[in-house]
């Protein structure tokens, strides 16, 4: 797969009068897994929503490889190769699992490629294949997250952004999902994951960014972050 990097430079964004992001810099290299950690309301979700074009950046620059995405629509961003798995899964509850997955390919026209990717998703998540005719609303939390990630993959992205992978899931399930994400990365995708569960995030990722009140306060290798006194105290509950 071609190596394309996501670059976020000095981005500011918010909702109405409330500014959430204050000059955020972040980058994700080809084939990398990068995590964004931080507490509730730090701006993690807004950061992903800004990258995917749902929220418009007020200043700064977002680019994916050579493609400028600063003022792009969600469809443009998806077309450039960035898929967004939103917080809380956001499945189409009354649609079948398979229709949910196919919905991920809404902008694609290559029927053969879509079928191939559907097979690929079922290989990653055999559970989804078992339940492909079931309504997505009847899935367990872990299966729903699988479906949401699978739906993201169906757009054939080069970068997969996941908002709160572990939200409401048992640690065991998170571990299973993490293993599959490593396989997905092995197949050539880069992954940007936003997490409140700092332990899980640092286990999975190569590099991490710490967000606090809309600013990046720290970034580096996950090994470095894990031993950083500030991170240990604020997010891992260790002195």
């Amino acid at each position, binding site marked *: 797969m071609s190596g394309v990097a996501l670059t976020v430079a000095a981005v500011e964004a918010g909702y109405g009068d409330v500014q959430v992001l204050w000059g955020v810099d972040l980058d994700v290299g080809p084939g990398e897994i990068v995590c964004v950690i931080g507490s509730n309301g730090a701006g993690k979700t807004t950061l992903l929503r800004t990258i995917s074009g749902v929220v418009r950046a007020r200043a700064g620059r977002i680019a994916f490889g050579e493609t400028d995405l600063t003022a792009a629509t969600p469809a443009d961003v*998806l077309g450039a190769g960035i898929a967004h798995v939103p917080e809380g899964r956001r499945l189409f509850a009354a649609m079948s699992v398979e229709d949910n997955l196919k919905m991920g390919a809404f902008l694609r026209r290559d029927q053969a490629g879509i079928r191939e990717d559907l097979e690929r998703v079922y290989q990653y998540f055999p559970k989804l294949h078992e339940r492909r005719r079931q309504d997505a609303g009847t899935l367990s939390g872990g299966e729903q997250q699988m479906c949401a990630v699978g739906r993201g993959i169906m757009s054939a992205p080069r970068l997969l952004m996941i908002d709160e992978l572990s939200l409401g899931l048992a640690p065991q399930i998170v571990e299973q999902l993490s293993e599959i994400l490593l396989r997905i990365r092995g197949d050539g995708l880069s992954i940007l994951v936003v997490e409140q569960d700092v332990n899980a995030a640092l286990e999975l990722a190569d590099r991490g960014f710490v967000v606090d009140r809309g600013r990046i306060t720290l970034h580096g290798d996950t090994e470095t972050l894990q031993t950083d006194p500030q991170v240990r105290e604020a997010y891992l509950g260790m002195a």
Partner: protein
Amino acid sequence: MRDWLILGVGTLLFGLLALSGDTYLLRLGTMLAMYAVLAMSWNFIGGMTGYPSFATAAFFGLGAYTSAILQAAQMPMAVGWAAAGLVAGGFALLIGLPILRLKGHYFAIASLSIGEILREVVNTSEEITGGGMGMNLPLLRLPPEVQAQAFYLCMLGLAVLTTAVAILVHHGRLGFAFRCIEQNEDAATVLGVDTRTFKTAAFGLSAVFSGVAGAIYGNWVHYIEPLDVFDIMHSVKPLVMVLLGGLGTLFGPIFGAIVFLALEEAVWRNFLGVHAAVLGVLIVAMVLFLPRGLATSFEQIARRFRGKAA
């Protein structure tokens, strides 16, 4: 394929009714076709896309007046009808862009106000619309039975056209997008569905056929006035029919229109004073006992029986 077959058979059966010279039956048939058109129209935006629109009366009235004004200027009837659809559809696209940013109750109220505003505009533009005096439409020089047959066939034709479009939408990319917006608009957005465009398209679709229905209605009854064609009931009735038949289903709205018209004829003519109360009770009863409509409930019952047999 099955849906086209149902449409074909239905068209044939209802078409045969036109042979009847019974004007009462033909009047009922015309009402039924009109109700079906309005219900299916509302279903595009309210059922499939999940935006509770109360603008049907606005489109109906706008269509009726567009056609009446053109015919008053000596345009042929057909031109009036076609223009009614275009004007109502175009108007919906324009007004849809701002008000479809609202959701739920807020959208419902905004859409409700459109009809009220249009009625006031028509009321005060006396030189063009005759204001509260209403407008007369040209009388056709045909015997009453032939007119009844003709208008029945026209309204039926519109209903068939609306159903055909509904079938295409239902099975197509458009319907897929509508249903995604109905279920989870945020998710649809991040999957690259241009929700604004699709919502506006659904609103436009709901307007075009309502507008033409209003235009045909005007010629059918020869006379329109603001209170009649912008009547809020034109917004409420289709909604009740769709709830009766099955929200977001393909043939549910038609089914709902049949049941609704039967109720209207059987009950309300005899209890004129309390018919609004009957409507209220009906809505409450439906929400309580048939939240997913008759069509869906029948399907569930049928499935249960089939399950037992197997």
